[in-house]
């Protein structure tokens, strides 16, 4: 059957939008590096094994993202983070696509493509979009939406294949992250409490059994029932944060929007206009917020970007589902479509600053760790393998584990050591922090080593590979810096007792001298050797 030119127009426009958004997001996320939880996967889930696939990550079943990381590490190694970013962007675009498809079937293409653009450029969700690790979280959402879409499709077309695919998608959602449990609850509600339950009851059963078996073997409960009293507040803050995040405005405006939504739902409920399907996405969001509230109330972060992402997608699709059941005639007038485009523009415009800032923040984190890893690799034989690469930015990455990953994969996530002097200030400070761990004053007992004593200036320059002998007259403090100013040093000044000390400055491929700073130069003498 030949398609109409209108169809091809829509395909071209939709594809172009997807391409432009993907390219733009890749551009914004340029220069990123592995971040936080990703290092856990790099360190402990490189090789294919049952444990590597099924071990929980913060309580989540993460088999599919673990598998994706294994494959990506195998093919691209540590020096092509672009591949991981690309994966995240693709999954994100797929989420936007699924959301727009769910909306398109009830509201038409123009509304669907508008929603696609809004979700595609959703600033509040930057953490998921630019962080490769979040393919699991977004993947779980994507597979849930796909499962829902296939369930709807199966019901409309009377097709068991769609139901089977819906069940498989739901299983994939569970295999991606704990978010899939919320999806399972909603799909189960839709299948078990619907009029056609005799045809659909089995859809959630397989995934549920699979998850139950995994949970019995590997699962650890993150939820705390003692946190139940905080859940309503957590959920309401999450909801209002999501509504506010959509437009990039203060949380109070989000709360007002959620209040309006509650009124809208209540009115529909009173008029018996609500259906199970129409509240599926809202129920999904509520279950998700409840789960997070139960497990994360100690770390109170309902407005964390990764959670807002899920909330925003669920709210957008959920609101359109409610609009669908509330309108006797489901046709959008031109003025309404224009109004929708205007609202979409406001959402993209208002939240875009978050998108840019989020990308910049992640890049900064990547720069810091990349510079530190350069130091680790330059001094791989002398640096303590048990210390963390960075106690703040990569505390879960021990030096030894990283070096074995480098050897194993034959690639590195470090920046070129020659770029250290021109790296960002935060990156240079991170590099200096590690270099400090390499330099320890050694006590000397032979006072004859110090023949001629010179009082130093406040700072002295030391070439790599050199040695200096200090005579400390009374307790004072010293600092070591190389790429960043000592005043900003993260290591700060170290205390040193009175005595004779030898300091060996390690040699490496960078010719930048080291700087030794004294708190009180009059308390120190430099010995000629």
């Amino acid at each position, binding site marked *: 059957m030949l398609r109409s030119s209108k169809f091809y127009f829509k395909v071209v426009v939709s594809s172009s939008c997807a391409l432009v958004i993907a390219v733009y997001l890749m551009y914004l996320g340029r220069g990123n590096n592995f971040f936080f939880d990703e290092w856990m996967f790099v360190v402990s889930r490189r090789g294919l094994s049952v444990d590597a696939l099924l071990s929980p990550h913060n309580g989540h079943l993460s088999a599919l993202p673990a598998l994706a990381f294994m494959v990506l590490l195998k093919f691209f190694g540590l020096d092509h983070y672009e591949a991981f970013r690309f994966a995240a962007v693709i999954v994100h675009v797929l989420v936007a696509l699924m959301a727009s498809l769910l909306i398109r079937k009830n509201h038409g293409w123009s509304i669907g493509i508008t929603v696609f653009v809004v979700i595609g450029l959703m600033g509040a969700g930057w953490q998921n979009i630019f962080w490769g690790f979040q393919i699991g979280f977004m993947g779980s959402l994507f597979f849930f939406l796909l499962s829902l879409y296939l369930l709807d499709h199966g019901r409309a077309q009377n097709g068991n294949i769609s139901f089977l695919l819906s069940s498989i998608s739901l299983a994939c959602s569970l295999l991606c992250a704990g978010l899939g449990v919320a999806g399972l609850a909603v799909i189960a509600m839709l299948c078990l409490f619907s009029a056609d339950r005799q045809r659909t009851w089995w859809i959630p059963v397989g995934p549920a059994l699979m998850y139950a078996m995994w949970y019995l073997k590997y699962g650890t409960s993150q939820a705390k029932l003692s946190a139940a009293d905080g859940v309503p507040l957590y959920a309401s803050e999450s909801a209002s944060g999501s509504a506010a995040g959509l437009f990039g405005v203060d949380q109070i405006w989000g709360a007002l929007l*959620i209040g309006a939504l509650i*009124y809208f739902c209540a009115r529909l409920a009173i008029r018996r206009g609500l259906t199970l399907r129409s509240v599926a996405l809202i129920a999904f969001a509520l279950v998700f917020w409840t789960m997070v509230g139960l497990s994360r109330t100690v770390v109170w972060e309902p407005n964390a970007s990764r959670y807002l992402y899920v909330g925003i997608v669920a709210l957008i699709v959920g609101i359109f589902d409610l609009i669908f059941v509330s309108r006797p005639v489901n046709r959008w007038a031109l003025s309404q479509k224009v109004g929708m485009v205007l609202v979409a523009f406001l959402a993209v415009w208002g939240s875009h600053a978050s998108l840019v800032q989020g990308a910049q923040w992640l890049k900064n984190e990547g720069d810091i760790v990349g510079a530190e890893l350069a130091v680790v690799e330059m001094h791989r034989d002398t640096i303590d393998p048990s210390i963390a690469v960075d106690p703040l930015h990569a505390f879960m990455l021990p030096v030894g584990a990283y070096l074995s990953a480098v050897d194993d994969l034959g690639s590195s996530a470090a920046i070129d050591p020659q770029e250290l002097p021109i790296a960002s200030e935060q990156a240079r400070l991170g590099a200096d922090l590690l270099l400090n761990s390499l330099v320890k004053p050694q006590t000397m007992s032979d006072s004859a080593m110090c023949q001629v004593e010179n009082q130093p200036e406040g700072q002295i320059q030391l070439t790599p590979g050199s040695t200096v002998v200090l005579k400390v007259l009374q307790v004072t403090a010293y600092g070591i810096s190389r790429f960043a100013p000592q005043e900003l040093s993260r290591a700060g000044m170290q205390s040193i007792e009175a005595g004779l000390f030898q300091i060996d400055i390690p040699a490496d491929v960078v010719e930048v001298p080291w700087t030794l700073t004294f708190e009180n130069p009059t308390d120190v003498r430099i010995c000629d050797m």
Partner: protein
Amino acid sequence: MWQGTNWDFGYGSLGYESLVSYIMKVDEKQSTLLKWFGVGIASLLIGIYLFSLTARNTFTFDEWMFFTDRREFSFHALVSGHNGHLSIVPAFVYIFIFKTFGYADYEVFRLLAVVVHLLVTLLAADRIRQRHGWAIAAPIGIALALMGGGGENILWGFQIGFMGGLLFFLIAWRCYERSLETSNLTWPLWTMIAVCLSVGSAGTGIASILVMFFLTIRTPQWKRFWWVSVIPGVMYAAWYVRYAGSDNATSAIQAIPAFVARSSSSSVSAIFGIDHIWGQLAIGALVAYSIHLVRSRKATRSTLAMPIFVLFFWLATAYGRALMGNPDSSRYLYIGVFGILLSVSESVTTTQWTRIHAAKMVKVGVVVMSALAVWGSHSQMRFWSDIHLSLSETAVGQLSIVEAHRNSIDPATIIQTIGPVPVLLAGDYLAAIDAIGSSPVQDVRELVSAPRQARLAADDILLSFGFARVVGTENEFVNCVSQPESQNLISVEPGGEVNFVVTQEVTATMARFFDLYSRGINDQVLEPGNYVALLKPDTLGGSLHVQFSDSSAVMICE
């Protein structure tokens, strides 16, 4: 049963149906009377309770400005602005009470605040009763009367002006509705007078001009009623041009929407004493409901009157205070709570709850919600009670010292402040009490038995002004043989002094009315040398106690 003796004498001419109708009417009248009697009893009990929460209070904060500047009837005293508000009504009331009762009877102001609050509540509850019946109005009325969120207004005499703006607006609204039922000028005249009083009470009343204008403009009654809003409006404009000090020069327009949103949502939260987020959700739902009403053309001028009043109040407050005020302030919440509840009451119809079961459920729901509102917000009421009591006791302690040492104190000494702004100088205070012939602390005889906070404040001011002190001296002392006796302390009677020598460094702690052992902030380190501990004479009772960290280092001289 009804075949009683009256049948033969009084009602013999009535038919059976007429008799039943008559009895029902009598029952209805009795029932209504009984209900109003209940309202009276409830108001009395609540009034007594609220009055008891302010026992021992005296003037605080802005009241001191009225205390010193508005004690005589004069044109300037009446029409001068107070923080940008036209306050002719509260100024008149304060001057009248000062002239009638003096400064010694703060109870009158406390009582007035409670009465004004109860009148506002009764008028609001009666509006609710007219639309929804007793069963819904009564619990809401009780919740409003005991509304902890508005405690600052209810428990502070000065806020009769702020509450008065709302009170006279409600009266004006009622008068306007009555005037629609008649053709004479009496009710319109009362309406205009009430609007004038509302505007003259505080800035809260300005919205009443706008609402009256809105209710009358482009209606068939416009020709009859135009002056009801225009005359007060012109009068207010004239006052504003001449007297209003604009304190909103630094206002940022962009801060207004958020301020209004926070004010409104905090008002809803304040009803139940819960977190702001719930109020925000509720306001969102109310906004959606309002949009629905407007879109479905169910909104009438009457249903929009209260929303306009409260919205204008929030906007005006935001305009003046967005950058320096607190949208959660109790005095703003008070207006917001009444505004929101009355807005909802005026726009909601309960006629759709035709089924008895549903109607009962609604009533039970309102009772439960009202109980939760009282329960949840009551801690706020206690909070404001404690705050005012603490401030009052502090003032009593300070002013007792000021009066006792009036000849020794610099008239420019600042006694009371609001934040960094001085509101009461010693000279102004003494001039005021001399002029009126009474004082807020005239009944204080012995500060030693005064409340803890009053004693603490008295000691602080006594020591900081140097009326009680330990000073070094060059004088030579003789017969320095005895040491402080019990508890390492010496006592100095009012008007007396004690000489002593310190042989090695000691710390001296001083107190007169307060517990010497509960503090340490008046500690004074004394180097070796000769010292005099002195206390200026007064009639406040008690002695100055000076306690030393080491009594062996102190020798008392004759």
